[in-house]
């Protein structure tokens, strides 16, 4: 990452305004964004959801989606005014000199054609090179991007290739005409961490190899720190600040940027280990569970003690949510037992007593689907109060207000609102209040922060930590995000393919020696250090990261 700002300017975006249509009105979604991009330079665009970063990325290609229009400003690519250029002029640039890599490769490849046919389309159509040359070039690019069987993989259909490989094939496709500029629109957001790192390494290598300028759009700071020369921060369609990567990471200027950086610093003090003879609140003993005949959990055991948080981590498909379904009784296990304070719980939730149901509560990942959109906040929280506590009228109302106070939402303001009138973080708080209303001992938190922006997520974590200290709750914290684990967990259970790979106290888990899988998982999480990826690759070599390493186990 050297300074490239002295080189020729490739793209200049000046005071760009974009509007989106809702109902019959045009409302502004991007309010004046400007930046320059020089040859071979990588600009990271970061911001939370709704910041307008993808829209800016597309507008930099002179393209707007249906229902979006450019309301003002200019986009100038190598002397061509893309805002006012005719469709033919723009078409000549797209694919040939400006390319695009989309978030979901699986949806962005046409299912009806082989990968290589889609790869060669742009070069052949733009008259860059012939089909045979382009095919040979594709294989070379596949090899550079470390795709397995580069000679053969292009002749498969998109659905026959895995997500991480497809994302690299799409990067190869974007490279097919050797463009001057590539827009990467959250290319690794949908991938697991161990897959993500491979794709990141591949993208960075190829962009450097061909000296291509790029705009890298993401919401993940640590990722952008590895990829970009300069970083630009957006908030709700407005610029916050822009600086080169190292400056931005070491000394952010604006309050918003500083708060983004601070999120990752939240960490609870460690608790003393539970007494040896203490009875765990929840004890999972040798659970084996299956969907139909397919076994998805194999002999899973762990304990959760009073007032402590156990984080269950693993990638998608590792069985962590299934374990939660067994504990709640939604999926009766094939064998094994769940104990609540030493007393076995019936396997099926329908056989559990009302008091047993009350003790185990759940908070969901998607607050949108977890709250009935037709009920007011007061009704949602009031129902368990009435159902378990048998309170009515004034008593119920008082308890609901108390709970709203506990989640830091003023009752007078929120009690009669509908979920649709709340922000994502507020909805998640209401979900927490509903769980608290049952007055439980144990709460399962299923990826409660993964759908939220980082600042909001931090607020939720702090709230949960405070409630735990005040009420002596036990949490089972399902997550794939190790930063969350570091922030809130007391103990960690690592799962892979339906088995517990390793478990222990948090401090032990973040210090070697580890089980090789835990090690891989931990090492794959990007850190806020611009040299992290470089160091990692130097330390391990390209063959010992990501899925390649998993395959070796």
């Amino acid at each position: 990452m050297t300074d490239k700002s002295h080189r020729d300017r490739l793209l200049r975006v000046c005071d760009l305004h974009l509007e989106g249509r809702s109902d019959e009105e045009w409302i502004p979604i991007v309010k004046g964004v400007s930046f320059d991009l020089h040859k071979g330079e990588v600009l990271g665009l970061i911001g939370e959801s709704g910041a307008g970063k993808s829209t800016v990325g597309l507008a930099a290609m002179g393209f707007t989606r249906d229902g979006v229009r450019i309301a003002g400003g200019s986009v100038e690519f190598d002397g061509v005014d893309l805002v006012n250029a005719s469709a033919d002029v723009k078409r000549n640039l797209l694919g040939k000199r400006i390319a695009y890599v989309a978030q979901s490769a699986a949806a962005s490849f046409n299912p009806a054609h082989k990968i290589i046919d889609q790869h060669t389309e742009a070069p052949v159509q733009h008259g860059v090179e012939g089909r045979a040359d382009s095919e040979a070039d594709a294989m070379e690019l596949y090899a550079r991007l470390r795709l397995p069987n580069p000679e053969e993989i292009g002749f498969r259909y998109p659905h026959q290739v895995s997500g991480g490989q497809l994302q690299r094939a799409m990067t190869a496709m974007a490279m097919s005409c050797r463009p001057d500029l590539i827009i990467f629109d959250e290319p690794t957001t949908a991938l697991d961490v161990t897959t993500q790192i491979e794709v990141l390494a591949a993208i960075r290598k190829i962009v450097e190899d061909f000296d291509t300028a790029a705009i890298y759009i993401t919401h993940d700071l640590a990722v952008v720190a590895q990829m970009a020369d300069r970083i630009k921060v957006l908030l709700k369609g407005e610029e916050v600040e822009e600086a080169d990567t190292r400056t931005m990471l070491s000394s952010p200027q604006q309050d918003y940027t500083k708060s983004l950086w601070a999120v990752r610093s939240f960490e609870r003090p460690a608790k003393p280990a539970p007494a040896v003879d203490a009875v765990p609140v929840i004890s999972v003993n040798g659970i084996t569970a299956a969907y139909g005949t397919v076994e998805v959990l194999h002999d899973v055991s762990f304990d959760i003690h009073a007032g402590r948080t156990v984080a269950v981590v693993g990638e998608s498909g590792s069985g962590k949510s299934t374990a939660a379904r067994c504990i709640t009784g939604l999926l009766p296990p094939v064998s094994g037992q769940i104990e609540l304070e030493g007393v076995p719980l019936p396997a099926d939730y329908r056989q559990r007593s009302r008091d047993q149901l009350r003790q185990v509560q759940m908070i969901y990942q998607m607050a949108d689907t977890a709250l009935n959109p037709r009920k007011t906040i007061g009704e949602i929280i009031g129902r368990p109060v009435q159902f378990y506590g048998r309170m009515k009228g004034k008593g119920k109302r008082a308890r609901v207000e108390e709970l709203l106070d506990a989640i830091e939402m003023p009752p007078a303001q929120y009690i009669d609102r509908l979920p649709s009138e709340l922000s994502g973080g507020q909805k998640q708080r209401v979900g927490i209040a509903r769980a608290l209303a049952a007055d439980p001992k144990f709460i399962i938190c299923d990826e409660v922060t993964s759908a939220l922006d980082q600042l909001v997520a931090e607020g939720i974590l702090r709230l949960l930590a405070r409630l735990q200290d005040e009420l002596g709750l036990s949490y089972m914290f399902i997550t794939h995000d190790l930063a969350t684990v570091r922030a809130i967990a007391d103990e960690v259970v690592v799962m892979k393919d339906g088995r517990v790979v390793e478990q222990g106290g948090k401090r032990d888990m973040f210090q070697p020696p580890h089980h090789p899988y835990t090690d891989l998982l931990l090492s794959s999480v990007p850190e806020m250090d611009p040299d992290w990826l470089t160091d990692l690759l130097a330390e391990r070599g390209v063959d010992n990261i990501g899925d390649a390493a998993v395959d070796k186990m």
Partner: protein
Amino acid sequence: MGSVGKIILQRLALGLLTLLVVSIVIFTAVNMLPGDFAEAILGQGATPEAVAAIRRDLGLDQNPVMRYFDWLGGVLRGDLGTSFAQLNFQANMGATSLQTVASQIAPRFSNTMFLAGVTAAIAVPVSLALGILAALYRNSAFDKGANIFTLSSISSPEFFLAYVLILFLAVLNPILPSLSNIYEGMGFAERLERTLLPALTLTLVVTAHMMRMTRAAIIQLLASPYIEMARLKGISPMRVIVRHALPNALAPIVNVIALNLAYLITGVVVVEVVFVYPGIGQLFVDAVKIRDIPMVQACCLIFATAYILLNLTADILSIVSNPRLRHPK
């Protein structure tokens, strides 16, 4: 290829099973008739011979299960029984030659197929073209106009459209005959001319449905990320449609066509009555009015079979044209 073959075989088996169950439903429905319905049907003037013949024909003294298998066996051999009207006629008039249901249905069946064929030949290309245009120029004046027109057309009963067409194309401007007088041995051109008005009526209804469904399918397709990707690769609009949209549109479009041909089956009944078109639909309605049970049963079975087969075809074609299933992992 193996898995597609397996799925298609499964669908075929399911279709056959559905047919079998439907035949049971139809048979059971007829068996819900009151015991002494023969007199009721034939009315006061029924001769004892006719009543006895009907009872014998339906085998009312046997147990229902046996009767069902007898009937099903007959159907499979092409023997659909003898119509009551014919029985009554024979009993009253002493005629010797009896027309079976099958021999009455056969010529009319081919007439109906002709009508459906002419309708499909007009409706399919027109509605696909209009549907694709409406999708490409969605939210334009053309799209909104087409939306109003198709909604009105779907909402109108077939006989309303039929009489409007008769009014304009047969009475006020005598271009086409208002009655479809079709007989055997007619020349193709003349036959086509007399079929055109009922076919146009059906076309109006079916086109509206087909066009709306095509439009919806294409719009959904054009919103997919791979179409946006193709545009962002700088591919010409024509090539985006032909190379990227059409191969994936095949499945939904084929589905739309088959479903609407199935829809024709219901429409044909009313339209044939309006134009006195000698097809199976008119025969069916006549049989319903005089409660000619074997005839009703047979027509119902034929309509249901055609309907199930078309739906089955739609199902299978959309499986075959799905690239994900054609090229399994």
